[in-house]
C-alpha cells in the first residue's frame, strides 16, 4: 500500500496524468479538511491500488514498513522496481459500504506525516555571538597566514599626517586635467576598437554520405 504524505504548505495539482507518470509511490497532498481528503482518496485509491498491484506483484514492502530505520538512519532497505506503464485508472468498485470501510481503513492505518509541524531549535543570543566570534577568529587566522588574503581585504594605507593641508592645497592644474582627459578618451577608443580576426571556422560541416 502506498504511503500517503500530507503536507501543510505544498501546493500540488493532483491530476490523473501526474499519477500515471509517477514512478515512485509517494503522493503529496495540500492540506485539506477531512471530507475533501476523503473525496480525493476515494478517487485516487483505485489508481493507487492498480499502481501497487503493478509494482509489487508478489507483495513487496508492506504499508507499515518504515522507509528509514530510526536506529541507524540508513536508507530504505529494499528498492522499488520501476514500472513501464502505469495502467489506466480502473473503474471504482461498486458498493458504497465497501468503499467506506476501505476509506476508514486507509485513514486509520496510514501514518500521516505533517511536514509543516517542525519545531525549531533556536540558538540563544549569547551562543550566537560566541559562535560568530569563534568563526571570525578562525577566518582571520587562516586569512592572515595565507599571503593572498590581504589582496581581498584591501586595508587602508596610513596616508598623510595633516589631511587639512592636503585638502586645502592648490587644485589640479588645467594642463594636467587636459592630459588625463585625452589619455582616458584615447584608452576608451582603443578598447572599443578591439576586433576579432576570423581565421578558421570552429564548426565545420562534415560530408557524411
Amino acid at each position, binding site marked *: 500500500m502506498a504511503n500517503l504524505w500530507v503536507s501543510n504548505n505544498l501546493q500540488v495539482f493532483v491530476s490523473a496524468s501526474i499519477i500515471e507518470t509517477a514512478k515512485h509511490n509517494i503522493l503529496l497532498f495540500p492540506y485539506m479538511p477531512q471530507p475533501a481528503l476523503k473525496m480525493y482518496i476515494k478517487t485516487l485509491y483505485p489508481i493507487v491500488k492498480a499502481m501497487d498491484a503493478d509494482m509489487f506483484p508478489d507483495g513487496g514492502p508492506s504499508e507499515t514498513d518504515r522507509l528509514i530505520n530510526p536506529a541507524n538512519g540508513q536508507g530504505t532497505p529494499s528498492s522499488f522496481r520501476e514500472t513501464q506503464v502505469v495502467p489506466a485508472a480502473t473503474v471504482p468498485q461498486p458498493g458504497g459500504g465497501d468503499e467506506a470501510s476501505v476509506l476508514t481503513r486507509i485513514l486509520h492505518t496510514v501514518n500521516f506525516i505533517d511536514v509543516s509541524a517542525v519545531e525549531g531549535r533556536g540558538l540563544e543570543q549569547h551562543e550566537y555571538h560566541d559562535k560568530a566570534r569563534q568563526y571570525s577568529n578562525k577566518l582571520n587566522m587562516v586569512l592572515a597566514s595565507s599571503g593572498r588574503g590581504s589582496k581581498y581585504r584591501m586595508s*587602508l*594605507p596610513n*596616508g598623510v*599626517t595633516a*589631511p587639512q593641508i592636503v*585638502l*586645502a592645497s*592648490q*587644485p589640479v592644474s588645467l594642463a594636467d586635467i587636459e592630459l588625463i582627459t585625452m589619455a582616458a578618451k584615447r584608452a576608451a577608443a582603443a578598447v572599443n576598437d578591439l576586433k576579432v580576426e576570423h581565421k578558421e571556422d570552429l564548426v565545420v560541416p562534415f560530408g557524411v554520405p
Partner: protein
Amino acid sequence: MAVPFDRIPDSLGYLVLTEDGAVSGGDLENKEDVANQFMNIIQTALRIPLSSSKKDKFKKLSIVWDNFMYVITISAHKIYICKRRFIPPDAAMA
C-alpha cells in the same frame, strides 16, 4: 582630533568615511549613495601602482567638474572628502 574643515577655503561640504565605508561625519553625511560611489573609486585608485614600491599610494585624489570638485585624502585610517569650489589655478593667476 577633529579636522578643521572650516579652515578650508571655498569649502561646500565635507565627508569623513571609515575603512569599511561607514559614514562618520560631515555635512554630506546623508548622501549614502555618493559615499558608496566614493568608496568604489577609492578602492580602485588604491590599486594603481604609483611607483615600484608597493606601499606608495595616492596622497590626494581630485574629481573635477566645471565649477566644483571633490578632494579626497586618507589619514589615520579614515577617508576625508571635501567638496570645494573649483577655480582653475591658471585663471586665478592671470
